């Protein structure tokens, strides 16, 4: 009996741990290396400047980060939810264009938005000229200014998630509540808003992560946050241990925010039963003063979040276009595009493997472990960058010490470390939508292919990938945009001979050559805007 039980367990283990389990585990392990490095950094303890940080800086980092999160959260929710409600509920002039224009602030990285607005409001700047030199400019280089910049830059995350939810609430819900005498305003506060809260919090969570990830804007405004503090501890104080310790504290804070978010969303998850086009909201036609009001609510974020900064940057770039626009700029643009393009391809490929390998392994633990490898998006780029530098340093020293191999130049002078960091940070941008869309493919479709004698990879390429085509393309484009804009990771990990548009813009601004930062910024914005417009057109075609 004992023998048969043992045999049973051995057979079970053999069937549970197959080659797909091994492949999944290997990818997860590699992707979790930065997480392990952060944990090890915590165990290693603090460096010699920690007392100074704790005494004079830590409180400021914490309070500024909290103010930024709360302020940006409130302002971006107000902008995002109000514009989403107007677009989902009313029919007004140019609505079809405005609903996509509201996404455009995503094309301008927040640090570039910060440069543009400082120039716009400075003494003798555009704002001063518009007001006929009566204001002597406005000083926005404070925490309130930063909250304004981050909010108009990040509200599209809240707008996008709440718009989808408001649109899918359905005409039946509105009809049944209006029959009981509820007005549209009451409907918004008592029915629509509570039902949309989980989606709003989903968007807000992304806003919080972006606020914590921001380095360029906070540094330019001189606001000390956790992320600028991590950089400063590493570069100015030259204390990498304390820097990693700060990073680990930030990761703990993010995990807490994430837990609160999932707790809230878990308790308040509502599902919409009928999502057919006929069941979607019937929009109310509006005219006159009502239309003007709605147009103002919807156009104000586009004007402040896209048009004003773009015009300001265009004005500056005209000053230097003849001297700046040369072959080097072409090289810079190509560098950025190629790096973003090939890294996006790699991330899509790894995300597809992460979606399908656990399925093939049929091992439920692998599915659970996959969640750990996709947490990178919640960890600020600066944290990942510094941790990887430290971990690679140990790795290089270990190889040198044990095998007498000098591998440092290969690790630090190539793009491998940077691309791996991109992969860790952005894998969830591709993984989450691909995983969700794969669930919509009936399992019997790939199973039919297996039973027709086809292998798992053949089925993946001939059946599953074609069915996921639209999801793959949209994930690729979103990744491309994120990578083109990325600053802190690239700044820390890029080899000295590699330049991107984002880095060039930051370097000019950091040297107080703000007008020269305009041209790379404008090129970057134009590339991203083209992709956003393509994405909106593509999703319109696919929304059947």
């Amino acid at each position: 009996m004992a023998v048969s039980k043992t045999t049973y367990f051995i057979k079970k283990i053999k069937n549970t741990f197959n080659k797909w389990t091994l492949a999944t585990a290997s990818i997860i392990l590699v992707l979790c290396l930065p997480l392990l490095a952060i944990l090890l950094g915590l165990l290693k303890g603090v460096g010699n400047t920690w007392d100074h940080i704790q005494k004079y800086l830590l409180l400021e980092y914490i309070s500024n980060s909290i103010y930024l999160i709360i302020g940006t959260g409130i302002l971006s929710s107000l902008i995002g939810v109000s514009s989403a409600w107007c677009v989902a509920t009313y029919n007004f002039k140019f609505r079809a264009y405005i609903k996509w224009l509201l996404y455009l602030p995503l094309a301008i990285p927040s640090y570039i938005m910060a440069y543009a607005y400082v120039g716009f409001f400075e003494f003798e700047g555009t704002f001063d000229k518009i007001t006929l030199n009566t204001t002597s400019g406005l000083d926005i280089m404070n925490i309130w200014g930063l909250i304004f910049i981050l909010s108009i830059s990040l509200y599209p995350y809240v707008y996008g998630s709440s718009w989808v939810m408001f649109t899918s609430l359905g005409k039946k819900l509105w009809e049944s509540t209006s029959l009981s005498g509820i007005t549209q305003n009451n409907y918004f506060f008592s029915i629509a808003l509570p039902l949309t809260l989980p989606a709003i919090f989903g968007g807000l969570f992304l806003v919080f992560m972006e606020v914590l990830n921001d380095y360029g804007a906070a540094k330019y405004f001189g606001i000390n946050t956790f992320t600028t503090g991590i950089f400063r501890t590493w570069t100015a104080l030259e204390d990498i241990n304390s820097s990693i310790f700060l990073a680990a504290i930030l990761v703990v804070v993010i995990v807490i925010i994430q837990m609160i978010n999932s707790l809230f969303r878990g308790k308040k998850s509502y599902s919409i039963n009928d999502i057919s086009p006929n069941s979607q909201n019937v929009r109310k036609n509006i005219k006159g003063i009502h239309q003007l009001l709605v147009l103002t609510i919807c156009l104000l974020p586009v004007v402040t979040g896209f048009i004003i900064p773009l015009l300001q940057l265009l004005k500056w770039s005209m000053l230097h276009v003849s001297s700046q626009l040369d072959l080097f700029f072409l090289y810079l643009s190509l560098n950025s595009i190629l790096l973003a393009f090939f890294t996006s391809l790699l991330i899509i490929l790894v995300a597809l493997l992460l979606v399908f390998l656990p399925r093939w392994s049929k091992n439920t633990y692998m599915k659970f472990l996959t969640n750990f490898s996709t947490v990178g998006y919640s960890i600020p780029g600066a944290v990942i960058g510094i941790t990887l530098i430290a971990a690679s340093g140990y790795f290089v020293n270990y190889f040198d010490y044990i095998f007498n191999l000098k591998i440092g130049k290969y690790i630090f002078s190539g793009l491998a470390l940077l691309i791996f960091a991109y992969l860790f940070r952005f894998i969830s941008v591709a993984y989450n939508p691909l995983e969700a869309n794969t669930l919509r493919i009936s399992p019997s479709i790939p199973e039919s292919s297996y039973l027709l004698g086809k292998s798992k990879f053949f089925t993946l390429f001939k059946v599953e990938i074609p069915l996921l085509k639209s999801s793959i393309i949209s994930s690729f484009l979103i990744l491309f945009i994120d990578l083109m804009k990325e600053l802190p990771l690239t700044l820390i990990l890029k080899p000295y001979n590699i330049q991107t548009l984002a880095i060039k813009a930051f370097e000019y601004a950091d040297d107080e050559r703000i007008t020269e930062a305009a041209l790379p910024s404008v090129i970057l914005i134009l590339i991203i805007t083209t992709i956003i417009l393509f994405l909106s057109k593509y999703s319109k075609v696919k929304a059947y």
Partner: protein
Amino acid sequence: MELELVDISKTYNNNVCAIKSLNYTLDKSAICGIVGDSGCGKTTLLRIIAGLETPDNGIIKVNNNIVYDGWINVAPEKRQIGMVFQGNALFPHMTVKKNITFGLEKESLNSVNKLIELFSLEDKINRYPHELSSGQMQRVAIARTLAVQPKILLLDEPFSNLDLIAKSKLRTEIKKIAKILSITVFIVTHDIFDALDICDEIIFINNGELIETCNSSDVKNLSDIKLKSYLKNMTDQAKRFISIIE
């Protein structure tokens, strides 16, 4: 084609026992019906035979070759067993012709014309699955499975979404094809009249347990009390069947 199932058991992660120590041997090419109520383990049994589910215990042999025994686990794509799923699982992005030829190598593409003719699909070959009726989709799914010449054909509720005329046409076609190709066919159904009409042998399953096996011609002479009491608890159709045999 011989199929042997020895002591097959399957329990899902939520401790639901789908199959309990099931033993069964079919030693000839025949049409075998697997009859039972919804959730009794019929589909799980088909999926285990196909290799899509791994049993917790037991041995599966096809033509005396072990395809599963815990140590050996032949992959579904290598078992030469074809399965038509409930809801047919056609590839939505491929035409009828591409669906049917999906499993074939280039050199054997000509052989499908006979199948297309057999299932009267000549004028539908360039259509996509969503442009077909339920009966036509089911016929395409069966043709696609037969195109790769499986040793055993498994059909999971093939008549479930069909109207009476389409159902009757498909029954006739399956009988004809099984005879022409001398292939072993397993049909899962909850409708005992479908099984009586088309099958040579019927297996009755209740709560994952095989409770009776018999030839469809002998089913009226069944005296097994356990089977009768089980059938009494089955659907209205089964109750009608009980009243006929009693």
